[in-house]
């Protein structure tokens, strides 16, 4: 998903650049680029989706074709084999016609069911095969076109094959071609190394060589695995393989064969049989030759070189692949097949409890070192006093090295126990256990700590229920209210609020500045009287108080006749008297009747506030 996102935004950036090239501003380029990127992304996704669809080659049937021999003497017979693996529904659609090559009737299909073991994992397989005899009627090279096979309703073609027909297979006494390491019998999963040795008499002046191996890359049930790496000191030369390609082979020191010095070469490959049955090695041929007469040089003289070829055939061979027996197979069988040795080493042998020890175990030998499953010490009873922090593996064709990160959790541990690897020994032909040597170690207890193992007297920690509750609960229970009470109360509150709000708003907005000034008038008067020292300033505050309460301008009460105001506003007698007393205090204050002593006393301020409270209490 991250890759898809990055792909989209990279396209968006490119498209933004394209849009800006056509004069669009960046503000315009952004939406344009997004649209273009979307179109480009969807287009590429549509095109790329079928290409990027993951294929599962193991699930698809495999079709192969090979010849029983790549070189045949004129008048001899060669067999064309076609095999389909992984399905039981196959049909050979057509037999190609090759001029100069007489074809027989195809025989088959032959059905073979087998059991495969690869890397310790097993699966069943089914194979269909056809065979077709052919005989060349003239010398020369024949290209057999691809054969068409119908597999599960689909048409599949094989690769084209090359057959060489020669008048005489002479030369066996002038060259050498032999195979070493080809077993007559092998167990499934057991690797073996095949070595082809070939060469010719040095005095012949050979300048061309061709290995004709019809089985190269096409033997069913055979898997090429990593082999011994090439030596840096060895000398390598390139020769032809199956006339079509080149291959590097190792040149060996000259050898004396039949009393004559020979130039020798070697080709090594490592294989592993992956299914039981019979491995058929078609006949191979080593072809080498020399130029006896040079051809023309130039445009008007195109005569080819005259070449004398020699042939050394290798007869057809077979190898039997035997299954790993089921009898006596251990539960923890690792899948290892062959002969193995184990070596162990540690990075330290004197540790504290819980401290890590790197234990390196190397299993080597002649077997499938790349494929077996290494043992897990955490599943071994002998490692109960160890904690496994992790493992790391490094596999090669001839060895597997595993580093176990182990930590002893008890000071009573005295050694790292043996690690067993259950294998199938191909020399003894039975299951055996390859043990590492026990490594003595010293584990020191941690100072001031109880150790990592379980405390003495208790086997381990576990989970248990929490105890019963013995204290009776004596709280009084309150009955739950009916379910509707919350929405009902909420509705009731809303109705009350709306009604009250409407009533209050009939007298005006309570949040209006005049209404807020009226509510604050008493508090403002008390504050200002406390702050002021000037009688004139106090007089202004008293008038402002009256004006705020009556909702008028601050100067409205200067010289006002209270009786007339009361008559206009329908004020009661109590209010008129209270306002009269209040205004009398104001008048006296204006007239300077108050002595200096009285002006400064708190009692006089309280008299003023008391008069103001009387006015408020009377309803102003």
């Amino acid at each position, binding site marked *: 998903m991250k890759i898809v996102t990055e792909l989209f935004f990279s396209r968006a950036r490119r498209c933004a650049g394209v849009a800006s090239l056509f004069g669009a501003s960046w503000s315009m380029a952004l939406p344009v680029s997004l649209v273009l990127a979307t179109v480009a992304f969807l287009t590429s996704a549509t095109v790329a989706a079928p290409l990027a669809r993951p294929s599962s080659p193991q699930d698809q049937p495999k079709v192969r074709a090979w010849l029983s021999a790549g070189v045949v003497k004129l008048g001899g017979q060669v067999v064309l084999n076609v095999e389909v693996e992984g399905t039981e529904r196959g049909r050979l659609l057509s037999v190609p016609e090759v001029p100069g090559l007489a074809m027989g009737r195809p025989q088959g299909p032959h059905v073979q069911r087998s059991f495969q073991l690869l890397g310790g994992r097993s699966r069943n397989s089914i194979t269909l095969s056809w065979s077709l005899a052919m005989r060349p009627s003239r010398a020369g090279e024949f290209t057999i076109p691809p054969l068409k096979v119908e597999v599960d309703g689909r048409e599949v073609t094989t690769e084209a094959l090359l057959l060489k027909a020669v008048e005489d297979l002479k030369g066996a006494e002038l060259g050498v071609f032999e195979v070493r390491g080809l077993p007559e019998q092998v167990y499934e999963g057991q690797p073996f190394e095949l070595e082809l040795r070939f060469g010719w008499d040095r005095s012949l002046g050979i300048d061309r060589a061709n290995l004709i191996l019809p089985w190269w890359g096409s033997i069913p049930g055979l898997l090429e695995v990593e082999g011994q790496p090439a030596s840096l000191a060895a000398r390598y030369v390139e020769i032809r393989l199956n006339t079509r390609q080149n291959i590097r082979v190792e040149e060996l020191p000259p050898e004396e064969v039949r009393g004559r010095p020979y130039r020798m070469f070697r080709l090594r490959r490592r294989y592993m049989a992956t299914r039981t049955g019979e491995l058929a090695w078609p006949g191979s041929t080593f072809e080498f030759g020399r130029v006896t007469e040079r051809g023309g040089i130039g445009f008007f003289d195109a005569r080819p070189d005259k070449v004398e070829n020699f042939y050394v055939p290798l007869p057809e061979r077979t190898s039997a692949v035997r299954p790993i027996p089921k009898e006596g197979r251990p539960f923890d069988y690792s899948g290892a097949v062959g002969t193995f040795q184990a070596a162990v080493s540690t990075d330290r042998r004197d540790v504290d409890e819980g401290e890590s020890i790197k234990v390196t175990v190397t299993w080597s030998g002649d077997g499938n070192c790349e494929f077996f499953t290494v043992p897990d010490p955490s599943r071994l009873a002998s490692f109960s006093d160890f904690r496994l922090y992790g493992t790391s593996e490094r596999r090669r064709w001839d060895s597997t090295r595993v580093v176990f990160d182990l930590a002893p959790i008890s000071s009573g541990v005295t050694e790292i126990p043996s690690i067993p690897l259950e294998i199938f020994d191909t020399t003894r032909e039975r299951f055996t256990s390859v043990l590492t040597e026990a490594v003595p170690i010293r584990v020191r207890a941690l100072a001031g700590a109880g150790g990592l193992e379980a405390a003495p007297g208790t086997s381990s920690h576990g989970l248990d*229920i929490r105890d019963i*509750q013995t*204290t*009776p609960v004596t709280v009084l*229970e*309150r009955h739950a209210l009916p379910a509707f009470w*919350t929405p009902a109360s909420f509705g009731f*509150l809303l109705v009350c609020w709306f009604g*009250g709000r409407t009533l209050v708003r009939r007298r005006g907005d309570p*949040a209006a500045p005049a209404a807020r000034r009226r509510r604050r008038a008493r508090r403002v008067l008390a504050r200002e009287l406390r702050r002021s020292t000037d009688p004139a300033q106090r007089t202004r505050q008293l008038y402002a108080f009256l004006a705020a309460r009556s909702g008028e301008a601050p100067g409205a009460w200067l010289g006002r006749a209270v009786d007339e105001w009361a008559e206009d506003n329908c004020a009661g007698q109590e209010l008129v008297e209270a306002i009269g007393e209040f205004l009398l205090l104001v008048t006296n204050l204006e007239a300077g009747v108050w002595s200096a002593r009285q002006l400064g006393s708190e009692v006089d301020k309280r008299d003023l506030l008391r008069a103001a409270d009387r006015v408020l209490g009377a309803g102003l």
Partner: protein
Amino acid sequence: MKNIGLQGVGGLLVLLALLSVSSATPAAPFGQSDEAATAYRAGDYSRAAELWSSALEADGLPAAERARLYHNQGNAAWRRGRVAEAAGWYSASLRLRPRSADTWANLELARASAGWDPQDSGDLRDTLGRVCTSLTASEADGAALLGLVLLALALLGEALRGGVGWRRASYAAVLLLAMSSAWAYGSRLREVPGECLVTSDDGASLRSEPRREAISLGRLDPGTRAVIVDELPNWVRLRVDDAPASWVERAKIFHLDSSSQ
């Protein structure tokens, strides 16, 4: 005008107080409970379970006391190896006392031992559900009452004084009330009447009729919750989600409804 508003709010509060009036409950048979604890300590779990069962039959037990006895019954069932039954007792206890950490721990241990999914898997859905059902019904009512009082005060201020401050206070009070109402709603969702738990190890077959020969319509896995809609002496009729109600043997289920114990 002010007096009218105050009188309205005061009347509401009095009404709520009357509705949520506390009532004294008779004392639980504590002596019996102590005897049961003694039997439990002595390892006589069957005797302890019997005594706690008879204690549960007393009328007017406070919900918290009933929850405590359910918890102890669960422990007695666990000690006798009846893991599924223990899970049922703990579930019933949590319906009455949802914040008991001990009961939660025992329930999860019992469910894990029975191979059931945890009651609280720790994801967002379960966490929110546990928060919303963490109060008992009366506690949730108290929270909702508090929210209503605050809302009444805020609305009163807004009606009499107006202004931005009181309006914001009203909004906050409405939000508070919604949260407390969610609690109250969640507590009522938890207390589904007639709820039961399938405790049989092999689950329970849903039959079309209350007899063993009737056609099996399906199977309820162990640990499934269902609601009882009808009862016969040995059979109960259950409804699970929106599926048609079907009959199940009574021995296969465990009542979670406190009134049914």
